[in-house]
């Protein structure tokens, strides 16, 4: 009887999820379909393309530095993600597991940096980059995101749940503090690290405002900047199929990154299952 009720519940959950998928992915599917419409077809505002037209994609690869932008976005997102994984988990761990004067204050200061809108920091950052010669360089693109307060907060929350006795056991075994963090604490919060990796990667992959301000040349652009260049109504028409094609191509690596790390999250289950 219980299992019967269970399976009915499962069916309902499944139906709801499938309906949800329809609703959630509708705009997204529209975007993909729009990328294979011709310009005239685009403005019929119909969901299905009348005929397949790849001129948007052709334009992207023939007339723009798209592959270069792809590479730039990739470099920036990877560097920033790695930096965040290392620093955020180290800082989060320190703030969660060490008791020392100023811990709360430092945490609050780091947290408070999230409360200043990026828009306000753009001019100081630009002046800063200009002084250091970072305008139109990878460093310029990368430096503001190296350690996000967001990640520190996330890691602090998860590090707090790492049992104290495992750490103490390692100390008794004579393990160094740095090693304890790397070897003992880090594996405990693998799901959180994976989530952090996904979010940081995406955040940088999609970042627009700072990259557009700090770059000058086509070679240094990132994908969102490239997309925005074709989104001006005052430029002899918005090339919507180009924009849709670029946006569709932009999503693919993110899906891959997501798939890799979400598996890490799932593998985390097995780990905490056996350990716990």
């Amino acid at each position, binding site marked *: 009887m219980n299992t019967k009720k269970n399976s009915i519940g499962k069916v309902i959950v499944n139906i709801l999820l499938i309906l949800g998928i329809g609703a959630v992915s509708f705009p997204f599917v529209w975007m993909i379909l729009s990328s294979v419409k011709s310009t005239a077809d685009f*403005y019929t505002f119909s969901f299905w393309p009348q005929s397949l037209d790849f001129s948007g994609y052709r334009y992207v690869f023939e007339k723009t530095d798209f592959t270069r932008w792809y590479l730039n976005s990739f470099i920036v997102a990877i560097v920033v993600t790695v930096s965040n994984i290392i620093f955020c988990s180290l800082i989060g761990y320190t703030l969660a597991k060490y008791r020392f004067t100023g811990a709360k204050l430092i945490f609050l200061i780091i947290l408070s940096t999230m409360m200043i809108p990026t828009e306000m920091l753009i001019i100081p950052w*630009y002046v800063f980059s200009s002084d250091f010669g970072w305008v139109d*360089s990878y460093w310029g693109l990368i430096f503001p995101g190296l350690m996000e307060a967001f990640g520190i907060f996330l890691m602090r929350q998860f590090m707090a749940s790492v049992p104290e006795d495992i750490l103490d056991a390692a100390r008794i075994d004579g393990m160094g503090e740095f090693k304890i963090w790397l070897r003992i604490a880090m594996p405990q919060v693998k799901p959180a690290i994976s989530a952090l990796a996904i979010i940081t990667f995406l955040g940088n992959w999609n970042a627009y405002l700072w990259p557009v*301000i700090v770059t000058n040349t086509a070679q240094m652009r990132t994908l969102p900047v490239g997309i925005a260049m074709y989104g001006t109504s005052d430029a002899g028409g918005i090339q919507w199929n180009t924009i849709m094609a670029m946006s569709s191509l932009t999503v693919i690596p993110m899906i891959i990154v997501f798939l890799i790390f979400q598996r*890490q999250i799932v593998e985390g289950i097995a780990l905490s299952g056996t350990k716990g």
Partner: protein
Amino acid sequence: MKKTFALIFTLLIGSVLLAACSGGDSKGGEKDSDKTEITYWQYTFPTKVEEIDKIIADFEAENPDIKVVAQDFPYDQYQNKIFAAVEAGDGPDILNIYNGWISKFVDMDYIQPIREEFMSKDEISDYYVDMIQPYELDGEYYTLPVAVRSLALFWNKDMYKEAGLDPESPPKTWDELIENAKAMTEMTDDGRYKKEGFGWNAAGQGLHEFQQVLLRQYGVEPYSEDASKVLWNEKQEGYDAFKYWMDMTMVHKIGDPDVGNTYREAFLAGLAGMIVDGSFAVGDIQNANFDWGVTTLPVLEEGGLQSNYASYWTNAIAKGVEGKKLEASEKFLAYLIQEDVQRDWLENIGELPASKALIEDAELANDPTYGPFIEGLEYAHATFFVNEDKERQIIIDGVDKIRLENADYDETFDDIVKKIQEVRDEFFDKQ
């Protein structure tokens, strides 16, 4: 996990190396010390970017001692980029800006006047169409355009046929426009537009249509000579013009800004029978899959006053550019504004020549697509904005109050005028 980390680290090191290499590349190119290098900034208009690159190549061939670096930025962040760069002392030598920004940029001390030795005021006003004259600020010109733009009426011939109208006779007067538009408008039972006869938006060309066309046709000079006073509601005719404009939507229900994202997109989708748009829209509308035509803007009554609105993107030399760089910048500007370049510009970009002589060229005036725009230029006016964004927003908000909240016409109109006047007072008080 370890494997993933190893992978990421390899990627990281690889990408940093790559970054270092390409960084080295760009520095390698800067060693030509005999060459004067100047930078030119514009927003990303793909055909303009291509055209400028071509012009630069020709210019550099003629002037081997000058190197011009052209850089472009997405439109929505273009002003911010200029702002950030100038604040950091990192700005370009030549900026391509919209005419509506000139006063702001002069006010912010970002651009310098055109030197008398380079091109005197008389030379400028002789060379260019008259509409650039409002932008003589404190007796100085600050910018030189390559091209200008005016408005014209696009109509969808297929929709005309469907509505039983003659597809070859577009409206000559505003009354006719309203009649034709009514015939083409289709509504659903609950009062939504299926198709609109006339697509418009105060946020687009609508506000210009009103202040430089309708107001003038009603006999109202919109601004005082020195542009410091807003005179829209000085006479009863101003209120009448505003009522006429608002009635199109509120009473005759011939169109609404909400149809099809923008009026141009609505027109392209076959949802709008007519729109008023600039020559730069031709590139887009060429792709339409229906028959269309373009004609001059309507008048109040046949034989009545014709008027048009003109705007332009124009080139300014940044403040602080001097010596060799100034000379090189001037040389490049002189090259850029040549009549030959202007001809190519029309052909490849669809913006109209800014030189008086070319506008009077009969061949151009008879062009079926660009003819109406060129004709419109003869009687076009460029609005002198002190703060384009703010003034435009005031009008949009006023129109929205009427559209969405059924506000009183006259009160709203007075309020719009009062607010624009405040913006102008603030600007002129500082001068």
